[in-house]
Structures are given as C-alpha cells and as structure tokens.
C-alpha cells in the first residue's frame, strides 16, 4: 500500500513538473495556430507582449501583434476588412467604429461565444459594455482598455491658502474641484498668469495657463467637447440623424471661451502635448481629459516642485466615454482561436496584469480591487476610484454617434470644422453648420441610427 502511494505521489510529482514541457512538446511551434492582432502602437506595447505570452502559454496559438499608429489604425483595418484578406484576426476598434464594423459585416458577433461565459461579460463596467460591446442586440467583442475622460488637476494649487483667498475674493465662492463648466471656466481664467506674476506666492518664471486643451488637428478635440455637449443635453447627432447646429454652436462657443486660457500650443497638440504641458508646470487643469493618462499626469509630482495631482469626475458628471474594443474579423481563418484571445485579453487575469502594468482596465472586478486603491498603487491606478464613479454617474448613457454605421467616418472628419473654429478661422456657428453639412454628405442625408 505504502509503495503504491509512493508511486502515485511520485508519478503525480513527475507529471506536474513535466507539464509545461509536455505542453510544449504537444504544441510544437509548427503546430501553433497563427492569429494576428492589429492594435495601437505605443499603448502599453510591452504589457501587451506579456499578456500575449500568457495566452500562448495556455493555448496552442501563435499571436502575431501588428502595432499600427493610432492615426492609421482605422483605415488599415478597414482596407483589410473590405478586401476580406484575413490579414487581421483580431482588430482594435474605437467606440465610434463599432457600428460600422458590425453593420457592414466586418466583424463577427460573439453573442453565442459568451453564452456560457455570462459572468465574464457581466464583469465589464455596464456603462462601458453598453457603449462598446453592444449593437442591435448582439455582443461584438470585449473592451480591453478604457480612455474614459474625467478631470485631472493640480491639487496643490487648489489647496494653497493664498490662492483660495484670492479666488474667493474674485469669484465669491470657494476654490474647489469644479462641478459645473462655468466654475471650470472661472478656474481657468483665475490661474492664467503672465511670467513674473505670483503663483502660490512665488513669482512665475514663465507664463502659466488655466487649462490644457487638445485643439490640434486630431479627433481629440471632439472628445473634449463631447462631455460638455452631452452635459448640456445635446449630442453630436439627434435621433433623426442630424447634427443639432444650435447645441454644437453653444458647446463650441464654450470651448472658444476656454481657448483664451490655454497655451498657444493647444492648437497643435493632442493628449501627449497636454501631458507635457502639465509635467512642465504650464497648466493648472485639463478640460474633459482621458483618465488613462493618470500614470503620465502623476509624474508632474516629480517634475514640478511642490506639485500634487488630483483626479475627479468631469464637471456636470458627463465626459467622453469609451474603450478600445477587441473584435474578431469576419475574414479570420481561425475565429475560434481569435475569440479565445479576445476573451483572454478582456478577462480578469489578463486585466489584472494589465492594471498592474499601468493599463486602465474595463472590468469592475479589477477597478474595484482593493490592491489598486492603496497609496503604493496610486501612481498607476489612482484614477480607478474616479472611473467607477464616472461609470456610475453615466449609467444608461447613450450617444447616437456610437450607434450610426457612419460613426467612424463622422468621427474622422468632425475635427476639421471644430479645429477651424478653435484656430479662429471661422466662428462657432459656421463650425456647427459646416459640421452639419459634412455629416449630411457623409451619410447621404440624415444618418441612420441603429438602436
């Protein structure tokens, strides 16, 4: 009996120790099913490489990662989808692109795949899931990364007694994290100062600006404006599929009002430029800004003496919301393996690793994990609590921009009139009217809204 037990234990031990080798032998490189994932270059590329390795260790699959510059990702992917080349098995989509890909049959629905994985699907922040994964009753993939916007600011300026006193004297209310866009504007005006003036009682060595804006020739200008437009009860498209000119004009005018308090470079930069301004001690706050940039923003505490960063919900509790959706190409030669990959990257274990590397997860279980709420974790995950609040505040929110099959084309075009206005070439009304005309041209009339 003893000998048999010994033998059994020994066999078990051998089996356990030999398992990885056995798996490796079972799955020689030549046997691995190749799948290709097209994704955004520079977005935690190293972390993604580790996650991919984790997937490959558990599956007899070889994942080729194709890193593509963000500005080229949409067109490169669409060309492959239209040609049904199968070059990419897993694609990465911006929220506004989902409806186009789904409607045109570029990606496969994953509703059936997730039938017995309901728990995993339910773990995606519900507000995010509704906007990023669902379209016309089907599930189209999993978001693995959220760029949902909020408010990032220099908390040390807000906490300074001299500044608090001066602010109250000028505006008649306490300097605090703004809860309305009017307060946000006041704060932007208040902190805009010339070289030589005092900030926190110290003379400034260079000009200081009240707000950092992403008004460069990139789509981020509309991301910034989205939160404001939505908080004013508007949307980029009405239910009739038209641009509400008056609402866009108002949001644009508010934006133009803020341009007065932004660095001149606002007209050429996007999010990385704003972060450089923050880390260079040039700006006091952001507008409606991507919270995934928190690990970048918090570095200001090292680069600017005495700086302390803060993060909060955007004023009026509305901000641009969304995430990068992983979906499976309809032309994929290995859709099963591709779906397994999507489920893995969007799954709990991979998302935990992603969060530890500084990525902004889309899962409630990860965002609310206590280990990410500690002081040690703050430089990487200090924005998670705020994200949870935003998802809660924006529960049930929908935008028609994400529900029209022309969303991607509109998204890729709308920056032009908005930036023209930001640069002073045209006024807010003209920008809104140009946008309306452009959108009508893109959709060939009122845009269809797929609900």
């Amino acid at each position, binding site marked *: 009996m003893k000998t048999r037990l010994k033998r059994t234990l020994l066999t078990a031990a051998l089996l356990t120790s030999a398992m990885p080798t056995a798996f490796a032998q079972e799955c020689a490189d030549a046997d691995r099913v190749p799948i290709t994932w097209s994704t955004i270059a520079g977005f935690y590329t190293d972390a993604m490489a580790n996650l991919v390795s984790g997937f490959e260790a558990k599956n007899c699959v070889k994942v080729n990662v194709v890193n593509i510059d963000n*500005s080229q990702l949409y067109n490169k992917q669409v060309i492959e989808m239209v040609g049904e080349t199968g070059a990419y098995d897993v694609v990465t989509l911006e929220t506004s692109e989902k409806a186009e890909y789904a409607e045109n049959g570029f990606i496969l629905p994953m509703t059936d795949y997730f039938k017995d994985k309901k728990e995993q699907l339910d773990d995606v922040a519900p507000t995010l899931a509704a906007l990023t994964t669902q379209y016309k009753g089907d599930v189209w993939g999993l978001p693995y990364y959220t760029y949902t916007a909020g408010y990032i600011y220099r908390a040390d300026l807000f906490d300074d007694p001299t500044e608090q006193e001066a602010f109250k004297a000028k505006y008649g209310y306490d300097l605090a994290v703004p809860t309305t866009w009017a307060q946000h504007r006041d704060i932007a005006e208040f902190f805009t100062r010339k070289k030589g003036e005092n900030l926190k009682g110290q003379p400034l060595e260079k000009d200081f600006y009240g707000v950092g804006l992403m008004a460069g*020739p990139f789509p981020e200008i509309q991301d910034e404006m989205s939160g404001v437009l939505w908080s004013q009860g508007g949307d980029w498209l009405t239910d009739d599929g038209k641009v509400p000119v008056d609402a866009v004009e108002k949001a644009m005018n508010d934006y133009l009002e803020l341009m007065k308090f932004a660095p001149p470079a606002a007209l*050429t930069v996007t999010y990385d430029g704003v972060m450089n301004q923050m880390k260079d001690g*040039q700006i006091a706050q952001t507008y409606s800004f991507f919270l995934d940039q928190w690990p970048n923003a918090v570095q200001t505490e090292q680069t600017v003496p005495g700086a302390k960063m803060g993060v909060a919900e955007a004023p009026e509790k509305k901000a641009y919301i969304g995430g990068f959706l992983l979906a499976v190409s309809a032309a994929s030669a290995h859709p099963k393996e591709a779906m397994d990959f999507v489920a893995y990257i969007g799954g709990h274990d991979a998302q935990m690793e992603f969060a530890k590397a500084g990525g902004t997860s889309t899962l409630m279980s990860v965002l609310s994990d206590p280990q990410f709420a500690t002081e040690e974790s703050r430089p990487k995950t200090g924005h998670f609590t705020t994200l949870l609040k935003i998802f809660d505040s924006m529960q049930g929110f929908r935008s028609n921009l994400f529900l029209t099959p022309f969303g991607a*084309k509109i998204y890729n075009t709308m920056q032009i009139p908005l930036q*023209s206005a*930001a640069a002073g070439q045209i006024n807010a009304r003209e920008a809104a009217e140009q946008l309306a005309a452009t959108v009508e041209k893109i959709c060939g009339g009122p845009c269809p809204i797929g609900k």
Partner: protein
Amino acid sequence: MSLSASIPQRNQIAVPSGMSDRWFAILLIVPAMAVILVFALAPLIYALDVSFRYADLTLGGMGEYVGLDNYRSVLADAAFWASAWVTVKFTLGAVILEMVLGIAIAFLIHGATKGKGIIRSLMVLPLATSAAVTGLFWRYLYDTQFGLINYFLGLLHLPEPNWLGDYTIALWSVVIFDVWQWTPFVALIALAGLQALPREPFEAAELDGASTFRVLRTLTFPMLAPVLFLVLVLRTIDCVRLYDAVAVLTRGGPGTVTESMTFYLYRTGLKLFRMDYASTMAIFFLYAMLVASLFALRPLLTQFSTRASEG
C-alpha cells in the same frame, strides 16, 4: 587595337538574324512597356472606371454606374477647390523661393575657391532623408513650447509665432520646410549646369569688357536656361504632389488651411473610403498635371528634337 576603337564594338548589340531593326526596337521596349501597363495604365483605367460609379468601400464596394455625377460633385465641391488653391499657393511660394535661393547658392559655390566638395556633400543631406522623417524634426523645431526656433527668437526678443497652429502662417511654415529640403537640389543642379558651361564665350565677353550683369543676362542665364527649366518643371510637379510634409507637420490643419489636393484625396479615399469621389479627383488632378506638363515641357522637347535632328 586601340581603346577608342574597341568601345563602339563592345557597345554594339547584334540584331538577331531575320528580325528587322523596327521589330528589334519594339522588342527592347516591351519590358518597360509591360511594367508601365501593369503599374500605371491598368490602375489609371481602373480609376477611370471607378470615377463613373458609386463606390463606397465600406458599403459594398463597387456600385452602379452613375454617369458624370461624381464629376459634377467634384466641380461643385468647395473643399476640392479650396485644396486646389492651397496647392497653387504652396507651389508658387515654394518653387519661387527654391529657384531664387538655389540659383543664388549655386553662384556662390561656383565662385568659391575652397571647400566646394564639403559644401556639396552637406547640401545632399536634406535630400537624403524622407520628408516623413525630417518633417518630424521640423515639427519639434516649430513647437511653440519646446521648439528651438522660438527659443532663439525669444532670446532675440522677437515675436514667437505659433508656426503650425496659426492659420495665417501655417501654410508658409510648410513652405519653409519644403524650401529647406529642396533648395539644395536646385542649387546642385544649377551648380552642375554652371560648371558645364563652355569658357570661351565668357573669356570673349571679358575681353570685350562686358559688365557682370550683361554677361549674366546674355550668356549665363540663356545657356543655363534648359537646366533651370528642367529643375523648375521637376520641382513644380513635386510641389503639386504635396502630401508627406502636410501629413507630418499639420495633417491639413488648422482646419483645412494646409490641406493640399493630394491630402484631400487621401482623406476622401482612405478615411471616408469614397473611392468614386477620390478617383474622380485623381482624374482631374492627372488631367491638370498632363496639360501643365505638356505646356511646360514643349520648349524642352522641341530643343531635344532639334538637337537630335541636327545630330
């Protein structure tokens, strides 16, 4: 056998027996024609076909024939004409500056007694790198916050413009970049032309006591004209095709202030995937280029054919 006598023999190609010179000549150009047919003519014919159809790539690809609808749309499109105007402004600005500066630099180098070789080598550098790469450097040089250009302007207490963000000057910032990159090309070609000029007419003019201005007007520029004209045509064609500098420096912005025809074509074709509309614009573009090239190249072609007949 002398060397001079052996060279023509080595270069002579034997015509296969039984084949006429005419057919042999045709045989020689067949490979080149095949390449042109596959890579230029076939796509052109395809683009022409697409321009008469409805073709939204994301909505089912090639659609029905729509006659001249796309041509009417392009002609009525304010954005198309705005991009054409941007292209004209850029081309005029860049080509004039490049020609003037290039020729001036060529004369300076031609008159230099030392360091010609080093200067020529240095001048090749901007040409040796693609605009996509140098454009990135220039974007940082132009940066209002961290750029070197504004840093030095600040040291001199001069205004620090928003080079790429100010819509009144953004296009000229692209022009400056192009001038930096391509003036050396003009200078090098002009310099080669200057160095190839025969000495005798200039020596005769010197003996006759002709002024420098007269020598330039009656001898140098007329003799240099074919070379300069060729450079002018090449630079004009290249400027009209402006894309990479815009893509890297401004992405057509602010708004559409720097959106050239090719950038608008790219945006229509590869962002909106309206291949019908993009193909129609490409046909217009090609037509304009062909007409312009024919007019521009006519004097050169006439000169070449005259020389050939004289030879």
